[in-house]
């Protein structure tokens, strides 16, 4: 069986790749993908902790399935927002949507 720390290391790396991508990218679709990466890192954490620490319970798995569902819905909403922003600004660059700032 693989060491729990190794798997956590993977999810750690995955989360910060996602965070880095979210901070540095300007393309909103890419940012959405980065968010999905962070969500998946969290999913891995849930599964790993459930499997290694509480083998007789299934709460972590339920949460993971729940998050996957939410992520799908969120992706749908996010893409709808991105399409509307594109209609308004003719761009999906996050920098161009600047009407809400002062």
């Amino acid at each position, binding site marked *: 069986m693989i060491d729990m720390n190794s798997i956590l290391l993977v999810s750690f790396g995955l989360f910060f790749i996602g*965070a880095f991508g*979210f*901070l*540095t990218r*300007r393309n909103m679709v890419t*940012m959405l993908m980065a968010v999905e990466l962070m969500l998946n890192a969290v999913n891995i954490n849930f599964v790993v902790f459930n499997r290694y620490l509480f083998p007789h319970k299934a709460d972590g798995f339920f949460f993971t399935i729940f998050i996957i569902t939410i992520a799908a819905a969120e992706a749908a909403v996010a893409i709808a927002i991105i399409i509307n922003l594109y209609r308004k600004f003719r761009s999906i660059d*996050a*920098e161009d*949507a*600047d*009407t*809400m*700032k*002062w």
Partner: protein
Amino acid sequence: MQDFSYIAFVLIIPLVIFVITGLFGKKMPGLSGILGTLGMLSAACLSYFVAYQYFIAGGRTADGLYPALEPFKHTWLQFSPSLSIDIGIMLDPISVMMLVVVTTVSLMVHLYSIGYMHGEERYATYYSFLSLFSFSMLGLVVSTNIFQMYMFWELVGVSSFLLVGFYFSKPSAVAAAKKAFIVTRFADLGFLAGILILSFYSESLDFGTIIERMTDHSGSIFESANAASFMGVSALTWALCLIFMGGAGKSAMFPLHVWLPDAMEGPTPVSALIHAATMVVAGVFLVARLFPVYAQVPAALDVVMYVGAFSALFAAIIACTQTDIKRVLAYSTMSQIGYMMFSLGVSGYWGHEGLGYSASMFHLFTHAMFKALLFLGAGAVIHYVHSNEMGDMGGLRKKMPVTNAVFLIACLAISGVPPLSGFFSKEEILTAALHHNKIIYVVGLVTACLTAFYMFRLYLSIFWNKATPTNKVSSDSLLLLEKVPEGRMRQGGHGGEVHHMEAPMTMKLPLLILAIATLVTGFIPFSMYVSADGTAFHSEFHLIPAIVAVSAGAIGIIIAIFLYGKKNDKPERISSVLGNIYSSAYRKFYVDEIYLFVTKKVIFKSLAAPAAWIDRNVVDGMMNLISTVTENFSDGVKTVQSGKVSNYVLWFFAGAVVLSLMIVYAI
């Protein structure tokens, strides 16, 4: 006890006419004059009836006094159980007399204006203002209450302002209206302060109550008002002097007289009504109304006496040098009001000592008639010549026989020639002065002499003294008229049209009526009806003082005939001999210049300018500072909201990291 409640109509009629002509006058311009005149006629008839009922049919009460009746009284503002402001009508001898004076002169002026203001663009407006004035003045004289009087006092001020500035396209008329309003407002500040002091001590605003409490020497109120002192003068004296200040402002007493000569910019009938017969005597009326209180304070009466006497002499000297006929009459008015004032000042209270009081009221009555006559006569002359300057007149006696005759009657009356009305009242005033104070008597005599001189200078310059051929004058003024249609030549109100005939009948009739009044009013036994304490007495006729007074007038007349009877160079020679004295009198003793110096140089520079600086820099600066600080602060803060999503995320992550570190290490 008779029912006088119909007296309310004397006030209501002018008010209603003011509203009607003010609102609908433009649609019926011709009608508004007739309506105003008829309304005033009915008001005048009512007041004659009141006078008859009050003085003759009603008669005296058991103790020989005329009662002070209040046929109508309504509590308006109740401040406390003891203090309230009422609106009401009081009838006593002086208010009934004033009702007669005001309605008579107002009726004459209404009638006269039909001819004089004919063709004027704002004819209906003029009549509505006249009605407003009549209403306010009538309300003033019948006030039961010092605060009601103050309100009507301001209303007459407003209507005077409106009528002086009637030709508002002329800058000088606008300036004169403003001056009249500001000077009298300034005086009214004193009046208001006086009212407040007086009512603070007497705990009442009602005339009757004030007089009752302030004349009761044993009462605590009188004692406390006398005991309280400020700068060594008792509160009661202060109150009376401040109230007199208001009266002096309205009545054009020195040094608050500066507005009256300028107020002659208004239409001439207005000058006759407001600035000769009625409004300017409001100050005299005020002092007379509170006379029982004044009589308790000799110091305040002395102030009234000296101010009156000085103004009488001062104005008479200036009147001798003026060339604008209306200004001569204005200074003459001021001088005659000075007479009334010092006559009140020399008066005592009880019985025969109250001669000055009766004489003052008598002079007020007769003066209203002959001064209104003089102004209306001058209006007829101006109407004919289209100029105010004496130099443009002369030799008009053939062209204007009626005006000539009535003007002569009025001049003789004001000069105190028997048996015209002015003689009786002036003789009584001088007799009262002789018994009280010799200096004032001499001042009065000199003034009488000067009065006769300048009135005959005026009369002769207009109707005799053929300076230049009259035809030339008319054509000159016609030319001027066409050149400057909005200028001073516009006074006649006739636009470009010049009548080469004497005034129309609507203008002659009031002149004749007033001339008859001038002839006969002197024979009214005035002191039988109006006296300080209400008791009747016969004013005795003393031969010697009468001869002295008449001869003073006669000297003035003779000098005037000598100088102005025919065109000659004597007046010029005399004025050049007098040099500085003449020129300073001609410049009205520089009082206007002193006012300008005090207001512009002293008050504006040392008070108003620093105050404005403080307002702009300190008060506004504080506000600006607050707004600048807020703005700069929010400018700094707003950059946080950059609109860049990645920035927000960074902040979010930083926050999450800090929070998690806190959780990890704190727990």
